[in-house]
């Protein structure tokens, strides 16, 4: 599914003295099947933006197109429900949405709401559980017995079981330890490889460098930049004005290049970095 925003504005509490202009004239296109990062300071509008993709929020003006669906301010909720399935949105700390008696019941909750049969939902649940790295013995357990990281995986399985074409993740690794973080990011990359569009809202530029292809930069409600990962990280000065640091690898390369090295600054993996340094020092 391709995603397009055309002149989208969003005002919270419109027509009241408390109105807040959260999105200002957003024009945007997200490529189908891409792994796109949305970055920007807290309060820049990232959350508001992603909630338009699964139609949790409607644009105050302008339109959002998700493949064949066109969403404008006047749309009725009933029409929009299928979008909640097409675009699965995982909020920050999703473990807080668990509520059922067993993990299986919680995971099938989503699919059932979209009219999937009970039997099929159960098989989707088993599949989703497997995807997030938990085995079927978890199905009968209560979700509240698990560790924070495990609960999070169950919550994500609940969204994956809905079989969305687009997966939107709002800081999915917040609070996880390094090992948990690696596993989670690898999971999302594997989902992209299945052909899904993955959108990642994050503050971690190392993840952006390692996993993403495109980056959208938001600032004060506007989309200020959209570009490939390597191009975005070429403009360090711009990123600094937004309080965003470069990834460790990129910073390192720039420091070396400042002192005589000539390493491709778009290198995004540790292995290639070592090879490049080795190359410069050997030859």
């Amino acid at each position, binding site marked *: 599914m391709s995603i397009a925003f055309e002149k989208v504005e969003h005002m919270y509490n419109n027509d009241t003295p408390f109105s807040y202009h959260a999105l200002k004239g957003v024009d945007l296109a997200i490529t189908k099947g891409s792994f796109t990062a949305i970055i920007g300071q807290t309060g820049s509008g990232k959350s508001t933006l992603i909630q338009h993709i699964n139609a949790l929020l409607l644009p105050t003006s302008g339109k959002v197109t998700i493949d064949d669906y066109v969403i404008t301010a006047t749309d009725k909720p009933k029409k929009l*429900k299928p979008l*909640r399935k097409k675009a699965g949105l995982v*909020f920050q700390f999703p473990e*807080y*949405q668990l*509520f059922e008696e067993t993990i299986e019941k919680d995971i099938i909750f*989503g699919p059932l*709401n979209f009219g999937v049969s009970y039997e099929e939902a159960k098989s989707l649940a088993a599949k989703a559980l497997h995807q997030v790295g938990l085995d079927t013995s978890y199905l009968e357990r209560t979700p*509240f017995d698990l560790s924070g990281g495990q609960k999070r995986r169950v919550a994500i399985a*609940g969204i994956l079981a809905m079989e969305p074409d687009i997966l939107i993740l709002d800081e999915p690794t917040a609070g996880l330890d390094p090992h948990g973080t690696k596993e989670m990011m690898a999971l999302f990359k594997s989902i992209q490889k299945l052909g899904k569009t993955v959108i990642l809202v994050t503050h971690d530029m190392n993840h952006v460098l390692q996993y993403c292809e495109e980056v959208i930069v938001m600032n004060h409600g506007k989309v200020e930049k959209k570009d490939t990962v390597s191009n975005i990280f070429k403009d360090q000065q711009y990123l600094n004005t937004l309080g965003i640091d470069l990834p460790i690898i990129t910073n390192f390369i720039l420091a070396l290049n400042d002192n005589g090295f000539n390493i491709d600054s778009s290198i995004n993996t540790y292995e290639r970095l070592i090879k490049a340094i080795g190359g410069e020092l050997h030859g």
Partner: protein
Amino acid sequence: MDNMTFGKYIPIPSLIHSLDPRLKIISLIIFLVAVFFDAGFLGYLILGILVLIIAICSRIQIKYVFKAIKPMLFMVLFLTIFNIFLIQTGEALFSIFSIVIYSGALLQSAYIFIRLVLIITLTTIMTSSTKPLDLTLAIEDLLSPLKKVKFPAHEIAMMISIALRFIPDLLEETKRIMKAQASRGVDFNEGKFMEKIKSIVSLVIPLFISAFQRAEELANAMESRNYNPDAPRTRYKSLTWQLQDTVALIIVTVVCVGVIVMSVIL
């Protein structure tokens, strides 16, 4: 949910706003007692004028008071009409649908209506002119003599102030959970009865769990900072009773006691 104006504090500089909250609570209680004595329409007129003067001095616009009364109005009218049909004292006046309406009923019902309106109006003025935390301080102060009989006055005040502090957070959390569940296909507006129940469960359980977790973390934080309700502790904020509070108390007491006396004599 954001439009809960009933009793919400409205910050305007006024005489009533500047009065000690303890005075306001005490006065309200005295007033509530006086209101239930039958001093005839004259008595209620006097009380009504008192409320009117207080309302004017509070500089709270009449529309806010009406907004607060409105939700109660339906209940008040219902009670009044209910009583008209129920009470059977006094002379029989006329009948509607073969139910006899007595003069006593009309009189009592009128009293009920007036009493409720007076109480609601005065309470609204009080909560609109007093910060919730000041009310909490006042409650703690007024109840503190009861500490001698082990009444947990301080703990109650602490619970109220923490609850007040977390109301905005809890509202935010509710919105967040609703959005998360909506993203899983929950429709909070539509659906058959059973579906609606499920929707509510998917909201309420996470809220409760998160509330308990919050409570535990908060308790840990408070304890780490050496909070000990049983040990002596000082208080940052205090209330100062001024001359205007004494004067106000005297006026309210005189009027209310006067009305009570009237009801006994007449």
